[in-house]
């Protein structure tokens, strides 16, 4: 790799070949504003906000898209550059709905920041905002407001490069160019997985999650209603970013305290139902292995693939509708939680399930869609009445007027508030796999997984597809058919990687027995409902916090959770039993491919 020497604003800098002017500028602490640029995505070079002067060139260069060259002399702050940038930002503002006061992304909007930085006068140009733009609220998960779109195409690139879904695309040209869907279908009819990754990367308020917090406030304010909230594992390591904490801070205790102060009747933990998922899913895997290996049942599909990620579930329903048999029939922890809130919890607490409002706080946009899947009501009541994102919870905490940093840590309520480290790590890619192995291995052998401190490092980390092989030895008599078997597992995150894994499954060449798939890059810590912005560094820090939380738990295996032991004793009786099947398992549906 050859070294390129150039100067930026009279400072000499060296970069490696292939790096851009923008990369070089960062090295010498020169800040160049950007808008269409995103670290997770390929170069676009279309907003032109990052233009700089290259000595000897007739035109300005987009620094994000121009490779550094030997001997380049770059100026980033000349009148020509400032003028062009100011004009460009003013042009973006002129086609923008500038009602910032009513925008969900106000104070967290890249266009707003640029506009302030360049002191844009709204009268510099005439408004060319298209009249009569309708907001698309057809989806349960995502709201699309074209009047706020800056056409940076980050969403399009996200949907194509990270997710390989291509729900969003560019249509029209010139003044009519816009971001749309195939055939301009509303989002609920487009082949969209609701993952919300586009929302995470939208610089403005054009793409946001559908908000339901006003309904939740209503319920909290209603004396007759008993509001139960459960918080997903990855919320506690990201929420702090919205409330003044550095990335990667664990704020579990303060978050619980805040929710209690908001007036939530019972603050419970999705980690509990994550532990429960492990028991059900782990047993399902072992049963499938038995049916295939011992009973030679050809109906049963291997590899079994996890079903906790609703974006992933909708993806497979659309793209691989003939392979739904590979999905675990387990509901996601959110839905298990809801089903039990309306049954087990109601029974124990002596509350009429009709008066319970179950609210899930999730790192996710797709969870909103999942909560509204028609089949998610096997108790006779909706499992989940409202699904909120981490961002919505952050807003609610601000709306409640709480000084978050000053709150004393509090603990989750009971019942369904206990959890283990295994439940916590659901929040990071590889976590479900690790948690499942911690339990399944022990069920089969009676011994702990053979990894130091229970940390199954091969399935951790940010690589797109990870795999591992675990040799099963010293089985308990009941599982002797697995003696000496090599359990092959894989973990994929980001739907582009899920597709690679599924192409193998569809071709019948998948070498694996068990696969974990999470729709979002990094798993739930990078979910579509998490605080904005996101990038690999942020996701890595959140994941570290997740594993840190795990290490600080007394119990780190799902089957050791006392409330899990209790619920099987009092209510569910046995894994995969009658009640489990009714409440905790689900079915899938084939969806259209186009």
């Amino acid at each position, binding site marked *: 790799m050859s070294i390129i020497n150039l100067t930026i604003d009279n400072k000499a800098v060296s970069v490696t070949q292939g790096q851009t002017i923008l990369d070089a500028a960062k090295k010498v602490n020169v800040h160049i504003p950007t808008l269409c640029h995103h670290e997770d995505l390929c170069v676009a070079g*279309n907003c*032109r906000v990052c233009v700089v002067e290259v000595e000897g060139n*007739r035109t300005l260069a987009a620094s994000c898209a121009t490779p550094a060259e030997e001997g380049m002399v770059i100026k980033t702050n000349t009148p020509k550059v400032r003028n062009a940038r100011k*004009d460009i930002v003013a*042009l973006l503002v002129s086609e923008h709905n500038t009602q910032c006061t009513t925008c969900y992304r106000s104070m967290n909007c890249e266009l707003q920041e640029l506009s302030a930085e360049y002191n844009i006068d709204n009268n510099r*140009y005439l408004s060319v905002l298209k009249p009569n733009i309708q907001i698309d609220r057809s989806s349960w998960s995502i709201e699309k407001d074209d009047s706020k779109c800056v*056409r940076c195409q980050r969403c399009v690139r996200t949907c194509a490069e990270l997710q390989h879904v291509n729900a969003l695309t560019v249509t029209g040209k010139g*003044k009519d*160019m816009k971001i749309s869907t195939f055939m301009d279908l509303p989002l609920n009819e487009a082949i969209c997985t609701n993952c919300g990754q586009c929302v995470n990367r939208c610089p403005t308020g054009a793409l946001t999650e559908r908000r339901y917090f006003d309904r939740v406030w209503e319920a909290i304010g209603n004396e007759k209603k008993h509001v139960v909230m459960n918080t997903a594992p990855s919320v506690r390591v990201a929420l702090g970013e919205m409330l003044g904490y550095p990335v990667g801070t664990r704020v579990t205790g303060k978050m619980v305290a805040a929710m209690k102060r908001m007036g939530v009747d019972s603050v419970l933990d999705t980690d509990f139902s994550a532990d429960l998922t492990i028991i059900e899913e782990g047993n399902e895997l072992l049963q499938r292995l038995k049916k295939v290996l011992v009973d030679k049942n050809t109906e049963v599909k291997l590899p079994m693939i996890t079903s906790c990620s609703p974006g992933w579930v909708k993806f497979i329903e659309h793209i691989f509708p003939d392979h739904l048999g590979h999905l675990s029939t387990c509901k996601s922890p959110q839905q298990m939680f809801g089903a039990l809130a309306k049954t087990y919890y109601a029974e124990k607490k002596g509350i009429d399930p009709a008066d319970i409002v179950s609210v899930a706080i999730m790192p996710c946009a797709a969870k909103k869609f999942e909560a509204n899947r028609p089949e998610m009501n096997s108790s006779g009541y909706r499992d989940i009445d409202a699904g909120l994102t981490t961002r919505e919870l952050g807003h609610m905490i601000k709306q409640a007027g709480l000084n978050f940093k000053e709150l004393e840590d509090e603990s989750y309520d009971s019942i369904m508030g206990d959890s283990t480290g295994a439940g916590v790590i659901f929040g990071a890619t590889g976590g479900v796999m690790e948690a499942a192995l911690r339990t399944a291995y022990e069920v089969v052998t009676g011994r702990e997984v053979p990894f130091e401190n229970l940390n199954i490092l091969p399935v951790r980390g940010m690589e797109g597809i990870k795999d591992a092989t675990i040799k099963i030895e010293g089985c308990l008599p009941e599982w002797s058919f697995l003696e000496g078997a090599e359990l092959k597992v894989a973990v994929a995150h980001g739907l582009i990687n899920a597709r690679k894994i599924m192409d193998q499954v569809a071709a019948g060449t998948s070498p694996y027995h068990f696969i974990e798939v999470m729709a979002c890059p990094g798993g739930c810590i990078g979910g579509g409902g998490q605080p904005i912005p996101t990038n690999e560094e942020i996701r890595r820090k959140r994941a570290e916090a997740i594993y840190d939380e795990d290490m600080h738990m007394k119990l780190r295996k799902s089957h050791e959770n006392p409330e899990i032991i209790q619920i099987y004793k009092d209510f569910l009786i046995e894994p995969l039993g009658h009640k489990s099947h009714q409440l905790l398992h689900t079915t899938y549906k084939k969806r259209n491919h186009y």
Partner: protein
Amino acid sequence: MKNKELKKVDIIFDCANCEPFEVVKKALALSPDEIIDQIISSGLRGRGGAGFPTGLKWRLAKAEQSETKYVICNADEGEPGTFKDREILDVVPSKVLVGMTICAYAIGAKEGFIYLRNEYNFLLKDLNPLVESFNQNLKKLGMDFTIKIFSGSGAYICGEESALFESMEGKRGEPRNKPPYPTKFGYNGKPTVINNVETLVYCTMIVRIGVEPFKKLGTTDSRGSKVFSISGDTTKAGIYELELGVGVDEFVKEFGNGDTKAVQIGGASGHCVPRKDFNKRIIGFEGIPTGGSMMIFNSSRSMYNVLKDYLEFFAEESCGQCTPCRVGTQQLLKGIEAVKHGEKPSSYLNQLLKLSETMKVASKCGLGQSVHNSFSSIVKNFHEEMIY
């Protein structure tokens, strides 16, 4: 200084001794480097309008190490007022194919494409069989080169070379970031020479008649002749091959109808020359470059309407990806309307001129960069027409 006089030339359409494969054989007798040297020494510059030295383009592509290289003939003739490529493909298509073949031999390409403007599909009736027999004859000559025709879909922007590649690759026709340039990273990411139809014919002719007859025409910066598409207020509308470097006054003397107010040189993305400057400007790369479009306006024409037409065209035909071009074109259009209707003061035109400067330096491709040419030349020269 007196401007160069107008001289009609007959190279492009000259069909004397027109045996295409004789020219191919003549080229094959030279080494690739000898061919490239000839093209460089002829001083030939791209006839699509941008004027990049053709031989240098070929040399850059030849220098690239790649198994796969392409030659593409840009026949997406979309500039308003240009219609000379259509005529060339209609009258002397073999010369285009020969030009592509010479280029392929010079740079080491095995495949060539003609990117044909959608509206020119009527030419396919004759072009398809011609290309087919041409390919067979190339095979007989033992040359490993095949030409195919790719039909565009009708977007102006796809005449921009990198948008054209995207379009051929089945993607949305949007210009790419440059660098890398086509000679390094073109169609399918492979080294590609993309030349205008007319440029390729000149290459054919330079090999056939030699460098000197070509080179002695024109000026130092604008060697040779060029095919012009002449339209507007003239009784002689049509296609003419003229020596480059001619003065606009000489041009108007020949083609104007006696009442010429302005000549728009180079189409909507070109420059407008007003009567007072006819004797000061010449047509060529050192003066006003053009892809061939010459629109003549007499004094009955409203230059406001002319400009408004151009801006409507640009606001429609911008691909829309980059901010300066997508929004800038709309602002210029809306802005001149607002001034005309008294909704903005006439001083707002100065703001718009500055905006067109920004578009010139900050747009991603030639489309947005060249809106400034017509905008500033019309607004500055016909300021009063913009207001009253």
